[in-house]
């Protein structure tokens, strides 16, 4: 469903050009959840932003549902295929738009009907009261904003979801509700997830396979079974695991 080959991501121009992601290749089958973990600044968000079409300075091949995408041009069909939940909720939420308007925007662009009802249902799914649709982003808490950006990403029922630390601002009980919701959607609608998280417990619960990133590269790939058994060769992965065992 997601195929990435030899991805290179760059920022800046000329002398300041920075090579943030190097030779990254991986594939995620339909209905699978692939986790990206790794050092802060290792390029995880950069990979997601390139796939989502948010950043265009990249080379390599990215195929979504079989069709190759162009770094610089996304046609509407490509855009329908994938939604992203940003690491920083403010990345997706316009500060001057109400919560309801933010969630309805992708629905409006795609001329969907019954938008009011859909927005209500989405708010309910992420555990927020319907009256929140009239509020502005600065009038809700950090975790509530994060849930708004999840609701927005779910609105179009796209087959691929890119999730960048989607529950980092949530207490573990609300996190459990969101993760259960994501698991249900994956099972019922066959969604495919690419997920970044620092929480090894979340990785183990959600991901079928993981790629471990360091300095822009994927240095190790593991299945869930290998992760649970602690079968890792790379010191960074081992450090992640030692954290979870200290529990």
């Amino acid at each position, binding site marked *: 469903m997601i195929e990435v080959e030899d991805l290179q991501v760059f920022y800046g121009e000329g002398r300041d050009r920075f090579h943030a992601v190097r030779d990254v290749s991986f594939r995620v089958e339909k209905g699978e959840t692939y986790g990206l973990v790794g050092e802060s600044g290792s390029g995880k968000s950069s990979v997601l932003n390139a796939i989502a079409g948010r950043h265009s300075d990249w080379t390599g091949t990215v195929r979504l549902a079989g069709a190759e995408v162009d770094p610089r041009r996304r046609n509407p069909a490509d855009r329908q295929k994938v939604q992203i939940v940003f690491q920083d909720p*403010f990345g997706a939420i316009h500060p001057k738009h109400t919560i309801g308007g933010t969630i309805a925007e992708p629905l409006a662009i795609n001329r969907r009907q019954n938008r009011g009802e859909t927005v209500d249902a989405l708010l309910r799914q992420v555990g927020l009261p319907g009256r929140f649709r009239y509020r502005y982003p600065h009038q809700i808490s950090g975790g509530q904003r994060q849930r708004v950006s999840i609701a927005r990403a779910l609105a179009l029922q796209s087959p691929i979801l890119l999730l960048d630390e989607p529950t980092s601002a949530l207490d573990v009980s609300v*996190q459990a509700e969101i993760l259960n919701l994501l698991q249900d959607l994956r099972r019922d609608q066959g969604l495919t997830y690419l997920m970044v998280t620092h929480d090894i417990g979340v990785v183990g619960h959600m991901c079928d396979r993981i790629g471990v990133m360091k300095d822009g590269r994927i240095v190790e790939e593991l299945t869930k079974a290998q992760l649970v058994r602690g079968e890792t060769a790379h010191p960074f992965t081992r450090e992640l695991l030692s954290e979870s065992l200290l529990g």
Partner: protein
Amino acid sequence: MSDPILSVRNLRVTFPSLAGRIEAVRGVSFDIGNEKVGLIGESGSGKSLTGRSIMRLLPKAAHPVADRMRFDGKEILSLPEGEMRGMRGGEIAMILQDPKFSLNPIMSVGDQIAETCRIHLKLSKREARARTLHLLEQVHINDPARVYPLFPHEVSGGMGQRIMIAMMIVARPSLIIADEPTSALDVSVRGQILRILDELRAERPTGLLFITHDLNLVRRFCDRVLIMYSGRIVEELPASRLDEAEHPYTRGLLDAIPRLDRPRDRLATLQRDPRWITEEAGR
């Protein structure tokens, strides 16, 4: 405990709304001495508003009142704004929950740290730049010279958090309010940042209010933990005894943690009891 660094009694924060007033913080009381106090609780329970009340950095519409909010012998809520401004980022420092969006979007991250150095340490322009590069290194940012000229939207999530922490190191506050300062950091960098906080506290008595969702971190790093639910503190414990919590909300939290060594098909979720909203904390 001898004189606490911060003493809060009956803090309430209200917002006007079409349907009357919304009370988001509903009578919160606690003291912080020379110690690390964890503040955990439900998303939307009022943790950030509590922290921001102490800094008087609330949204305009918010109305905070308290029977007492004393820091260093001063009543914070009645301090003139000028005096408060001097205290902010000086005696009291706060790391805000959305670091990249609390920084100035049109000034490079390096210049922002350097400005703090010039104000607090009275350094020259050149000295401030050198100091900033050193600080970036101290918070374990690789290649400080490359990162210095980047704007806030050009740094990664975890780098944004560390830039806020670098600015706080400069100010040497005696009260630190850290609102999820490590949520975007991998385990190894997180450990290094916690060590930096401990080093700062070793230099002089410092109170730390650490708002987080990471129960493992609280258990290992903090001395005490306060648990908030719906605008109130519903339980308080020594952090090392978090697992002995009795309030059904806290119990529910502990049960909801996904663990590698205890795989489950579905995670346990809370059945929220309306009585949790009204009952007094059991003390």
